[in-house]
């Protein structure tokens, strides 16, 4: 059975598309699934550094499309997760180097011997987004609980529907539980009511994402991180499993309170 092409997109930049792509990909690969992550953000390559594979790039997406290398040569295999591959974006070209039909052809080939093809879409609603949307079997829209990100997510959801690629599912990223509790941040319920789409994951704001990204290690490989757990759960839901949603509060209990007492200001 051919694999599924999943596009991760947001409209607004900086909400966590690349981090989500890297981590969902790593989580699926850790479960033994065969995964290819494609950085579709041509000219603004980043999935390579987030995955820690930047030093091994020889060929890129545009080289494959323009026939300068075979598909296999542009696929970088992750050392920690042997079932995880990356096809990096070209850094010195722009979106016009690739067309939606190029992406459809490429993804169709990759689907034949992989379970998942994850596409990290560029921000915006222009050519790069169209390239990333064209081959999608499923679309994940990621947003933050902030008005500009929610508004852009709504626009993207509408475009995904118009292209008959819907219904998109929502990842709500960087939720600050304490602010939600104070009534100073939109809650998951608020965002879902506004956007009226199905939720696939809620990811708490977690400093460990920054530190693990600094090191080029997917956060899902950190068994203790709550964001890592949230991304692992998204991967399982994507694969069709029914997984209950994590509460966004940090672990309470005596130990939790004690650690917070000992490390005030820590998470």
């Amino acid at each position, binding site marked *: 059975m051919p694999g599924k092409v999943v596009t991760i997109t947001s409209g607004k930049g900086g909400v966590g598309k690349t981090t989500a792509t890297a981590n969902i990909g790593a989580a699926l690969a850790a479960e033994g699934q065969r995964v290819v992550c494609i950085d579709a953000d041509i000219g603004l390559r980043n999935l390579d550094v987030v995955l820690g594979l930047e030093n091994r790039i020889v060929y890129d997406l545009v080289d494959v499309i323009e026939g300068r290398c075979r598909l296999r040569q542009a696929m970088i295999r992750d050392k920690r997760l042997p079932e995880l591959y990356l096809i990096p974006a070209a850094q010195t070209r722009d979106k016009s180097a690739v067309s939606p039909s190029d992406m459809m052809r490429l993804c169709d080939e990759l689907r034949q011997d992989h379970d998942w093809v994850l596409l990290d879409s560029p921000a915006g609603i222009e050519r790069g987004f169209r390239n990333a949307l064209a081959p999608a079997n499923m679309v994940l829209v990621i947003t933050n609980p902030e*008005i500009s990100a929610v*508004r852009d997510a709504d626009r993207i959801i*509408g475009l995904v529907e118009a292209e008959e690629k819907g219904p998109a599912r929502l990842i709500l990223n960087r939720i600050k539980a304490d602010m939600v509790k104070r009534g100073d941040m939109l809650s998951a319920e608020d965002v879902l*009511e506004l956007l009226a789409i199905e939720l696939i994951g809620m990811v708490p704001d977690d400093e460990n994402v920054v530190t693990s990204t600094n090191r080029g290690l997917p956060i899902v490989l950190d068994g203790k991180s709550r964001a890592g757990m949230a991304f692992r759960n998204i991967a399982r839901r994507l694969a069709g499993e029914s997984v209950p949603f994590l509460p966004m509060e940090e672990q309470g209990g005596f130990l939790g309170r004690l650690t917070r007492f000992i490390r005030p200001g820590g998470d």
Partner: protein
Amino acid sequence: MSSFLDRLFGRESKSAQTAKERMKLVLIHDRTDLSPAAMEALKDDLIAVISRYIEIDPAAVRIDMTQEGREQRLIADIPLSPVRRRRMGQT
């Protein structure tokens, strides 16, 4: 300080609530591509057309956009002019 007092006495709503209310309106207009000004023009046209057939009170006409899932619905509430109707009934 005043905002602190406002909050203490519950006079100011929480910022998340404000954000949600603002977003509801913004999203409706984004999705329908209908600006508040265009909505007013639509209302005026609607009143003009209906008034050709039946007496209505233009000031009482309400037009709202509501949301059901991701579908938008235009709801018009047009009360008929009661005085005129009674008079017409007498003749």
